[in-house]
């Protein structure tokens, strides 16, 4: 009996990976199936079972809830997740070149004390990491809100895309609008990838905005003020975080 209670508690903990609404609707039922599947004497969830529940729960949280009929919106949401993935590559690049950045600062700050250089490193690298996290968060947020049919997300995505376009121009050193006095970190340390990533994310953003404003997508979005008829009936637009990591001035 205690074994069973332990097992049930373990399963309940794993079910927390699922979205709350899904848990409310199906939690008891899944729990019953899990308990029925468990062999006598099992005291805690197995590894494979736990992995399956965590994977399914995360998938439920992340997958777009856009109906199959709204094809353009589904495509836009997928692109937003792709944008988040590419932005993550950007963060990985940054983490990989931290050593180079420090060396760069050591040269730049030859007239500074070691403590000052170290302070500069901490400040600059923290700022870089935060700036790289912002686009990832924006992509995911917009994908989620768009997937739930929020019309404001469509407008916000478009605005973000505009901002991304402006900041993209500063990626290229010879650009007229280049305001960075120190070249963008990623570009300076990883010339090819550092330039490709912002362009890729910008293109994804462009495609997203285009998809979201197609007549087929507009039909999916509810006009403001109308009560929601079904679940996730109106799609919003995706945000663009593509260029957020682009202009880095240290």
């Amino acid at each position, binding site marked *: 009996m205690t074994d069973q209670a332990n097992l049930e508690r373990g399963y309940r903990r794993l079910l927390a990976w699922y979205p709350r609404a899904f848990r409310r609707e199906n939690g008891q*039922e899944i729990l019953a199936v899990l308990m029925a*599947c468990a062999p006598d004497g099992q005291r805690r969830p197995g590894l494979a079972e736990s992995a399956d*529940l965590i994977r*399914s729960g995360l998938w439920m949280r992340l997958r777009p809830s856009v109906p199959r009929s709204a094809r353009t919106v589904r495509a836009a949401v997928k692109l937003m997740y792709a944008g988040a993935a590419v932005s993550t590559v950007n963060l990985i690049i940054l983490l990989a070149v931290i050593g180079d950045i420090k060396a760069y600062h050591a040269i730049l700050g030859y007239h500074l004390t070691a403590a000052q250089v170290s302070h500069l490193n901490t400040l600059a690298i923290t700022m870089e990491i935060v700036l790289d996290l912002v686009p990832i968060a924006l992509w995911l947020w917009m994908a989620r809100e768009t997937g739930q049919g929020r019309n404001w997300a469509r407008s916000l995505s478009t605005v973000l895309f505009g901002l991304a376009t402006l900041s993209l121009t500063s990626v290229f050193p010879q650009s007229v609008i280049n305001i960075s006095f120190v070249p963008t970190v990623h570009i300076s340390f990883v010339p090819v990838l550092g330039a490709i990533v912002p362009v890729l994310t910008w293109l994804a953003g462009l495609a997203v905005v285009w998809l979201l404003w197609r007549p087929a997508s507009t039909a999916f979005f509810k006009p403001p003020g109308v009560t929601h008829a079904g679940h996730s009936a109106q799609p919003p637009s995706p945000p663009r975080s593509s260029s957020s990591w682009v202009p880095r001035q240290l």
Partner: protein
Amino acid sequence: MILTALASGGQHGYGIITDVQEISGGQIRLRPGTLYTALDRLRADELIAVDREEIVDGRLRRYYRLTPAGTKLLAAEAARLQAHASAALARLNLAGGAAT
């Protein structure tokens, strides 16, 4: 597989798992997490629907059944697979006949 398990009538979650295992000759053992992700998707696509709910031993047990759209899709899919299988068998027979 889940649709096949529901083809002969409404089933609850655990019933689907054991049924799929039986249909696949023990090869496929659905895990509850995977099953409910699939059920949720099938319900959203209106291929299955909740048939009825019961409380057994203080726990909710929900029975699912195919919708007309689900039945149609399953029939089309089965016909497609059957056509593939017949084509494969016919060609194997031909090849076997030629070889002997």
